[in-house]
């Protein structure tokens, strides 16, 4: 259960890295918002992915 949750949050970090750029392209959000969301995605991924991968192993 804990591993699944870690996985979901870690992967949401990757989604936050890519998806906002598509929203900039579609003129839904600004470039500045995209940069903030990407930074959030980076923090999520690098904070959680090591624990998720460790548990998966």
């Amino acid at each position: 259960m804990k591993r699944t949750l870690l996985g979901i949050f870690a992967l949401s970090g990757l989604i936050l890295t890519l998806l906002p750029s598509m929203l900039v392209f579609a003129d839904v959000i600004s470039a500045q918002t995209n940069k903030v969301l990407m930074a959030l995605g980076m923090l999520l991924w690098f904070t959680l992915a090591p624990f998720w991968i460790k548990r998966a192993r």
Partner: protein
Amino acid sequence: MILDRLTARLESVQEYEKEPVPAAKLKSWRSFLGMYAGEHTAGTEFVIGPLFVAHGASAGALVLGLLAGNLLAVLSWAFLCAPIAVKERITLYYKLEKICGKHLTVVYNLVNALMFCFLAGSMIAVSATAVGIPFNIPMAELTDWLPSSLSWVLIVLVVGIVTTLVATLGYEQVSRFANIASPWMILVFLAAAIAVLPELGVNSIKDFWPVAESKIWTGIPLEGQSKFTFWHVMFFAWFCNMAMHIGMADLSIFRYAKSWKAGFTSAGGMYVGHYFAWIASGILYAVFLQNSQNSLEFAPGPIAYYAAGITGAACVIVAGWTTANPTIYRAGLAVQAILPNSKTWKVTLIVGLVTTTAACFPALVMRLLDFVALYGLLLMPMGAIILIDFYLLPKLGLKSELAEKTGQKINWAAAGTWILTLAACLFLNFSFGVEIFFLGLPGWFVAVALYIGLSFLLQPSTQLKPDLS
């Protein structure tokens, strides 16, 4: 104490360097797919993609040239390197020792280590362009060869020393970190490019190609840059990893593969890193050129920062660092093979300092395309020697793995092939103006012909070891 413990741990790792990899240790194709995709989305991609733009490659030449060149690279891994790797299951260095002799392998290691130092140096410089953003240091221009300011040198020294210390102390941790960073880096490349497309006038997918032709890969080189055609792009994509596939360095990797077909997994690296990442970084550079009225300044850090903010700058640092770190470590291992009694960490430290010094010179980044082509070309003849030694010499009634059978320290047929092939390439370059990107192909045929010819000439006069004769 800590260093001794780490060194002991490194020394205890069983890498099957002088014996075939046992069946229980073989890995599935998935391991290779992940490894190639990760290794070929690196700091160099932030430089190579923009340099294609700077060299005036047209959109058609780029898209088709990369498609064809990467396909040829994948086929080279699959049909030249992987089949020998899974039949022999030993490292490149051990294979070279058997064919060329210990002394010639030492020379190979030295050349390899030097090339690794320069490659790692260029990555330290790439990272430094991102680290230098908060300090507003002046960045080098495309035509610069020497350091442009003291602040640049200081930033490079700091990045280089930190990278070297980490390479000395914690290779395993960096390797784990690189595995985690790899999927994220690929997405940052993609996201940064998608986000800036509207600035170039791409507001829907159908806008992309006209804008690509008129604003990104315009076909017009920047001031002071040579013109790249389809052939430049194709041969560069094919030969930028020539040392690894045709040069057979990846024998050491594919000896762990269950089947030679694992060679096709190199497509993961080629079409993610050497296709999408090069295209993405080219788009980022085109936006920079548009905003700066074709400035000749060339700094991947600020370019990525503009497109993706702090994430972009972090990506440049991580990409440069995760490439430089294992490269310094590999260079250290190559030197250690020459000086087997020296401590790994001491060698790595010295190699790191040489690398850091080299990184201060912007020429390493600005001429990265030429350097990568030279790297492949220098080591390619050894790959041709291995191929002919493995497949052809026994069929011609000649002995393969001659150095092992005769106890020679130098196989002069191999040494002659290496030197004369490079001399022939130099001759083609100086006398006929053949550019470095194109020399690999004729050079390979020259190496093949020379090794066969010199083996016919020199083998009859060599004595086999008494126990083998």
